[in-house]
Structures are given as C-alpha cells and as structure tokens.
C-alpha cells in the first residue's frame, strides 16, 4: 500500500480517460486485492466478494468519465465497491439464506473453541482472525463499513467521511462505538 508509484492514481485515471488502456490495467493491479480485502471483510464470502470486485472494476471501465478530479481516486473506487457490497447484502437478506454471520454468539462458541485468555493473545492465531471476522459481521452495516475502512484498510477519517457521505464527527463516533462493540463481543468469546 505504501509502495512508490511512477504515476499517482489520479494521473492514471486521467490517462485512462484519455484512452490509455494500460493505465486501466495498472489501476486494476493496484486495487484488486485492496478491494477484495475490503469487500470480503464486509460480506464474509470470498466468491461473492470477488464478483463484487469484478463488478467494481468493470464499472471503473464503463463509467471512467464519471470520475472528476475533485476527490481522491481511492475514495471514488471504495464508494463504488461499498455500494455494490451493500446492495449484495440487501439481496442476500431478502433471500434469507442462513449463513455463519447470522449465528449468535453461542453458535460461535460451539464452532470456535476459545483457548486463550487475553484478547491480545487470541488475535495472534487463525482462530482469532475468524473470531474477529465473525464479530465484524455482527456489527450493523454503518458501523461495519467505517471500522473496516479505518482499522483494516487504514484510510483517514476524512477519506472515510467522503466515502460513506456522513460528517467527520459522525464517522469518529461510529468508529469508536464499533470498536467498543467488537471488544465486548470478543470478550464474551474468551
């Protein structure tokens, strides 16, 4: 994420808008895994997540002229991915498919035996990753989005505010509340 690139994202999208298809390929290479991580943490299904990332990058191709250089490219692409992910979750909810994310905390306890005592120790292993992933899934959507963008994608508060289109103060408050809820859930699983 911190690699030095010859062109910035904004320069690449400008080149792509002027017909340079290679710039599109470069943007795809830069963003596909970042978007995949974001969407997967959001929907908790790798196949669906990959489809959403595909849709996002196809939209980048077909709607490239809709991007205006008034916001960061990353803000724009995360907004598209986030909206598609939310739409998918709504569809999923309508289909009423029971999946792991619908389980209560007692289901998690059955599936993931807790062996470590401290949260700091738990998170070192594979089980810990699953536990955190499940905990994230149980957050309300507006908490889930911001905490993933902040604590996993490491975006700034300002950028998150633009992506989710809510004021900065609300974003900070939501992130704090999300962390408190996650901490509470993971404490129960000890």
């Amino acid at each position: 994420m911190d690699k030095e690139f010859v062109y910035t994202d904004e320069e690449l999208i400008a080149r792509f808008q002027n017909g340079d298809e290679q710039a599109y390929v470069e943007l795809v290479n830069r963003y596909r895994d970042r978007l995949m991580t974001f969407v997967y943490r959001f929907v908790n299904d790798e196949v669906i997540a990959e489809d959403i990332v595909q849709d996002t990058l196809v939209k980048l191709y077909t709607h490239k002229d809709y991007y205006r250089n008034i916001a960061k490219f990353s803000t724009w692409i995360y907004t598209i991915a986030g909206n598609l992910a939310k739409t998918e979750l709504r569809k999923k909810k309508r289909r009423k498919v029971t999946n792991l994310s619908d389980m209560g905390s007692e289901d998690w306890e059955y599936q993931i035996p807790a062996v470590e005592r401290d949260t700091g120790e738990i998170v070192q292993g594979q089980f810990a990753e699953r536990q955190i992933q499940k905990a994230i899934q149980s957050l309300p959507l507006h908490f889930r989005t911001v905490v993933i963008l902040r604590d996993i994608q490491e975006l700034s508060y300002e950028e998150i505010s633009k992506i989710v289109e809510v004021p900065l103060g609300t974003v900070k408050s939501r992130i704090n509340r999300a962390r408190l809820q996650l901490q509470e859930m993971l404490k129960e699983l000890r």
Partner: protein
Amino acid sequence: MNRYQFEDLISDYIENKLPIAKRKEFEAFMEANPEVKDQLESIRSLMKSMKKLPEVKTSDGFTAKLMKRVEFEKNRPSAKKYVTSAVGKTYFGFTPLYATVMTALVIAFVVVGMQLVPKTNNNSTVLPTSITAETSIIPNSSSPKPYQNDDIMLAEDNDSTDVDGPARVKSGQFDDKIKLVGNK
C-alpha cells in the same frame, strides 16, 4: 468524568488526539477505575490485531476473467454509450440528440412567431385596418382639428359633480316629468 464519557474518548486517547487537559482527566479516571484500563488495553490490542489481518487476495484467473467481461461490455450496444462517451461531449449541458431537438424547437418557434407579426411600414405605428380605412376618408385640411366646435370641448371640461356651476339644471325645468318628494 463518568464511564460513558470515558468510553466516548477511548479512540481519541489511543490515537493521541485528545487535548492535554482532557487527556489528564482521562488518565485520572483510569487511575481511579482500574477496570476501565483493561477495557482500554483490550481495544488497543483489537485495533492492532485488525491491522494485522491478512490481505485477502483475488483468485489467479481474476484478471483474465475481468478482461473478458470488459471486452463483453465494450461490444455490448447498450453499454457503448458509457464506454465511448467522452468528457465534454455536451452542448450547453445537452447531449447532441437533445441539443438538436432543442435547436429545431427554437427555430420553429421563431419562424412561427415571425409569421404572426403583421407586415408594417418602417415609419408608422401599427394600426388596425379598420382605423387606417377611416383615416383615409378624412378630408385634408391645413390644420387638422379633431373637434371643430370649441364649446364642446369647454362643455366637456365642466365637472358634472359641480352642483353650483353654470351647467346646473335650473329648478323646476323637469317639474312636469319628475315628482320630487318635497313637491305636493
């Protein structure tokens, strides 16, 4: 500070965004309530763990599949309007189609409007044809005067509401026709 206020400030404290005074107050509360210190450390640890979560990679065939879809979208007729549209291909905010329709409408409006305006001489005001016909039969004179009799003009200048004026009807003039309340 109470527990709720403490919880509201946890993230700001961890991310070092509290002003000094508030920070001291926060730490004082922690000293007085050791159990909240555990909560703080737990959240700090959770944040570190979330940062360490592994990146989820796309599958090997991802790019090939994507490029296939892009090719498909490029050749799809309904998608062409998006794919081929370029920045600035609008005229005064209208797409070329709407711009053409709007231009045709404006031209039609102007043409119809011009048809409705009657043709006139350059140095005359427009008068209806009936009036122009009447003026043509007025005999020519050196000093045209619409009213030949000045008395008529003077008579018209008299205020009909001026009951004391010369035009007042003399009492008894219509006595045989009108019976007033006072006449018995």
